């Protein structure tokens, strides 16, 4: 690979969001791994430079002395604290502020970032749109860069961008479901609406990814990034799946930039008609 090609490739695969430039378009979660060692190896294999984390009570008893942060290189990874498990705006704002307090003390660049999730019910884990919008407005006012989980509703996506979200993050399908991209048409509309007068506005597909081809599809649709956790952590071999996701993101983004051919109903030969030595039976 020559120098020009290498540089172009780097730019193609960087993600600009919330005033920062991430080296990879893949954001990965840190939950659900069998061990922290397995998580660390998977984060490494994913090529990601940004990982999500959750804010939870310290355990007062039965502490094994291990902290997640002992297994994440804070010089390499931007931490993106989430508000997972919040079902109203007040709780989400409170949790976001506590995450910021921890990251500020650590000097991590993700300190003013939040992955906002305000959920509607425990069965679907779909977002509560009204509470999400309310929390987004409050957090933006409070100086946060809000990366906002939402459904694949284009109207809601527009409302969240208008409220100041640094990135709108529609779900491909329900969290942890592994169903992939259920409604690519809605995602196309979201991308069109949010980028029509603002082509660099980052849209990140968050949730529902089941395997590497879903990641490739996300990027082929024109999304700027993908956020996933379960597809890697619950794969039979998480480290290998993380590597597959890394490659799929690169492949999908390059395919999007290269431009897919239009679909045709009938075939079109790739070999020339001219010079054929064969005859046809009709």
């Amino acid at each position, binding site marked *: 690979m020559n120098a020009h090609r290498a540089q172009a490739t780097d730019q193609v695969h960087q993600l600009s969001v919330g005033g920062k430039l991430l080296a990879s378009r893949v954001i990965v*979660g*840190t*939950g*659900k*791994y069998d061990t*922290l060692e397995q*998580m660390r190896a998977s984060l490494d294999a994913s090529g990601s430079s940004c990982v*999500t*984390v*959750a*804010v*939870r*009570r*310290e355990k*007062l008893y039965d*502490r094994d*002395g291990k*902290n*997640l*942060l002992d297994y994440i290189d804070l010089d390499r990874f931007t*931490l993106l*604290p*989430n508000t*997972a498990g919040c079902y109203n705006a007040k709780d989400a704002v*409170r949790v976001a*502020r*506590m*995450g910021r*307090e*921890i990251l500020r*003390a*650590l000097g991590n660049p993700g300190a003013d970032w939040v992955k906002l999730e305000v959920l509607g019910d425990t069965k679907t884990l779909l977002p509560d749109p009204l509470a999400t919008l309310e929390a987004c407005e409050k957090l933006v006012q409070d100086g946060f860069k809000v990366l906002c989980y939402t459904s694949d509703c284009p109207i809601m996506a527009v409302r969240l961008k208008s409220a100041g979200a640094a990135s709108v993050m529609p779900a491909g399908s329900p*969290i*942890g479901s592994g169903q992939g991209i259920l409604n690519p048409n809605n995602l196309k509309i979201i991308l069109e609406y949010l980028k029509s007068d603002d082509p660099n506005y980052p849209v990140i597909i968050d*949730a529902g990814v089941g395997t590497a081809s879903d990641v490739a599809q996300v990027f082929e649709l024109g999304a700027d990034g993908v*956020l*996933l*956790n*379960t597809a890697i952590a619950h794969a039979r071999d998480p480290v290998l799946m993380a590597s597959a996701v890394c490659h799929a993101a690169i492949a999908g983004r390059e395919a999007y930039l290269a431009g897919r051919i239009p679909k045709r109903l009938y075939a079109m030969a790739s070999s020339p008609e001219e010079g054929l030595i064969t005859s046809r039976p009709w």
Partner: protein
Amino acid sequence: MVEFEFNGTPQKAQAATTIRGLLESSRIESRFCAVEVNEQILPKDQYDSYRVQAGDRIEVVTLVGGG
């Protein structure tokens, strides 16, 4: 003794116990945590000066794996 709530659990401590003392006795790494007293974040530079009051609701959180 003062009675207070610590991460949702009723607790007792010696009068004049500081937040720092509370964290140390619970073997909590203060570098990786945030502390709320009555739903207000307590800045780290006040861990040595704030003394737990009767009826306080104290929450100590850290970062864990999540998506």
